[in-house]
């Protein structure tokens, strides 16, 4: 009678304490340079070791310049120190690092899955909220704080109270031209930024079965923006086909054993959840955020909403968002002009995202005065895209073709919005200042971002044909 979440929890629960918390075994630990330094320092201060360094994987992704990734100085001296501290720590503790010189270097949540580090039925953690991405594989994957990073390094376990469970069932048929990003934004628009708080969301419905692994990753990635602890999708043939043959995926006999375990993970038909909701997708249109949190989302054909009935608190957030974004109620989304475009991030920087954007970019030109970046999620994504000639499509159209990294998603490197600049971004957060002080972020799908780059404003990409 258990959900997949229950099953994974039980498989990893070493003991349950009187206070209700459990000690969980952790299978996989991703580390990046921003949230790990203080954890490693903590170990050194107390003379502790990393318990299982082979189950850790380190990346440098947040601070790295995507113009020239070997340029250690490009993002400033403090970034350089942080990245080099990561190199020292990984070397000292024997952790495999995908750093400056590694051809496969990439964003943690892009790299992990593509090398088979991410596997179904596992518990995966990282000092990064978008760790929820890996739930696409039927793993329980969630972000942790730096104290917890230190705890996992030292013990390969984590102390957690079991979150509640929530089932989101997508009902209906996905309309033509609607991406996983649109569906995820619609979900957040519907349930709000705290709609999933305290819960692990399992996604079900025929939509999920028809989604590719990359689409599932986009959906699970954005689950955290609905406030949920994690998103999870039961593994199926699509999952196994994706994983088969990847570098760290089990091989031969081991693959067969793994499959037996994985096929048993599915939630039982009678499983009960603390919360269940249906999301109807028949009418979904391409989505754009207008405000400063991801629930402030509308369809491309709509106008900036008026707020009629609300609490004083809601009014305050609404007014502050509009003021920050420099928008007024009633303005049509298709009249909002942009001057920056960012296609990238752990949400939307995989090969399918780039193919999607390239279909729109092909044979067209970025509007004069608009700067448009395409930042692949990893070295592998970049090489594959180049093999397919996507880099040429983008550069011919006037997009900048960059090296892998988190880049303008949170502007810790040298890609930063200037005050007042407005960006169509495929990333995950439109928070104030996220992409740069005073910068204005609108979250969209890769196709919508590419179209915005060309039109210089938001357009309904469904009306565009491929050239």
């Amino acid at each position: 009678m258990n959900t997949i979440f229950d099953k994974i929890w039980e498989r990893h629960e070493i003991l349950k304490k009187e206070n209700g918390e459990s000690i969980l075994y952790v299978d996989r630990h991703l580390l990046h340079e921003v949230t790990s330094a203080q954890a490693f320092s903590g170990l050194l201060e107390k003379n502790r070791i990393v318990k299982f360094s082979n189950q850790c994987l380190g990346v440098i992704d947040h601070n790295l310049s995507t113009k020239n990734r070997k340029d250690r100085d490009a993002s400033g001296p403090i970034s350089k120190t942080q990245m080099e501290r990561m190199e020292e720590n990984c070397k000292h503790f024997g952790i495999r690092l995908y750093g400056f010189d590694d051809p496969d270097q990439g964003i943690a949540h892009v790299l992990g899955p593509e090398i088979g580090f991410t596997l179904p039925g596992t518990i995966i953690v990282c000092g990064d909220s978008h760790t929820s991405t890996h739930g696409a594989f039927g793993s329980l994957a969630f972000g942790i704080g730096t104290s917890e990073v230190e705890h996992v390094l030292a013990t390969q376990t984590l102390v957690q109270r079991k979150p509640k469970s929530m089932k989101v069932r997508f009902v209906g048929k996905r309309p033509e031209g609607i991406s996983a990003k649109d569906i995820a934004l619609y979900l957040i628009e519907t349930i709000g930024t705290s709609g999933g708080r305290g819960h692990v969301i399992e996604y079900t419905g025929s939509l999920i079965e028809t989604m590719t692994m990359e689409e599932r990753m986009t959906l699970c990635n954005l689950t955290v923006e609905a406030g949920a602890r994690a998103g999870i999708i039961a593994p199926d043939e699509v999952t196994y086909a994706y994983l088969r043959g990847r570098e760290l995926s089990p091989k031969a006999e081991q693959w067969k054993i793994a499959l037996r375990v994985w096929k048993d993970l599915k939630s039982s038909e009678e499983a009960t959840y603390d919360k269940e909701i249906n999301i109807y997708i028949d009418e979904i249109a391409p989505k754009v955020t207008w405000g400063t949190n991801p629930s402030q989302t509308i369809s491309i054909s709509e106008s900036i909403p008026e707020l009629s009935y609300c609490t004083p608190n809601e009014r305050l957030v609404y007014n502050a968002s509009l003021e920050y974004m420099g928008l007024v109620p009633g303005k049509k989304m298709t009249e909002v002009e942009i001057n920056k475009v960012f296609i990238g991030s752990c949400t939307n920087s995989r090969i399918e995202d780039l193919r999607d954007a390239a279909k729109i970019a092909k044979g067209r030109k970025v509007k004069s005065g608009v700067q448009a970046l395409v930042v692949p999620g990893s070295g592998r994504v970049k090489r594959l895209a180049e093999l397919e000639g996507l880099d040429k499509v983008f550069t011919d159209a006037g997009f900048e073709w960059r090296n892998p990294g988190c880049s303008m998603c949170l502007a810790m490197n040298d890609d930063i919005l200037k005050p007042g600049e407005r960006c169509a971004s495929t990333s995950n957060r439109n928070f104030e200042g996220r992409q740069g002080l005073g910068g204005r972020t609108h979250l969209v799908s890769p196709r919508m971002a590419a179209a915005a780059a060309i039109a210089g404003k938001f357009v309904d990409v469904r009306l565009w044909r491929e050239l």
Partner: protein
Amino acid sequence: MKGWFEHTGGAITILRDDIDTDQLLPKQFMKLIDKKNFGNYLFYHWRYIDSNPEKLNVNFVLNRIQKENPSILVTGKNFGCGSSREHAVWALSDYGFKVIIGQSFGDIFAINAAKNGIALISLEESLISEIMNWSTIDKDVRMRINLIEKKIFYKNLSIVFDMEESQRERILNGKDDIDETMEEAHRIDVFIQSYLNENSYLVIK
């Protein structure tokens, strides 16, 4: 971390829902590799105009403080949502905050807060409004929070709160979680050995 069971201090109100950790501690300060002085960067973009520490935003509550730094923050719904950055909690703690009273809190933020000795108290909207009334009437509002009685005291008034037991214990005891887990080292090792035997396909060589 030192445990505590009772705290008395000045309170301020930032009435806004969905205050995310990007607002608490902007990313440029996440590049630091120690845990020191993060209080200087708390609410940086709200405290200073154009990110210039010499241009105070006089409208922001932290810039209107006359005497000692406040240690109790009263706020809205979903405080601390967004990024998992514990740096946001280090900033609150270094500034002097011990207690945050709100309608609800981000999941990861809540875990980080307890590990740094910050008590998060969730209350219904009506009770938050009542507390806000105290501070409207009394500019120098001081409250006493007792984690054993689970009560907020102001003058002769009090409000009862509930708190997740494990988080309350963590703040009361101030124990190092790693030390505590290591007390179970034997049980953990036995578990891991048997787990990896059964799931040998998970072993990375």
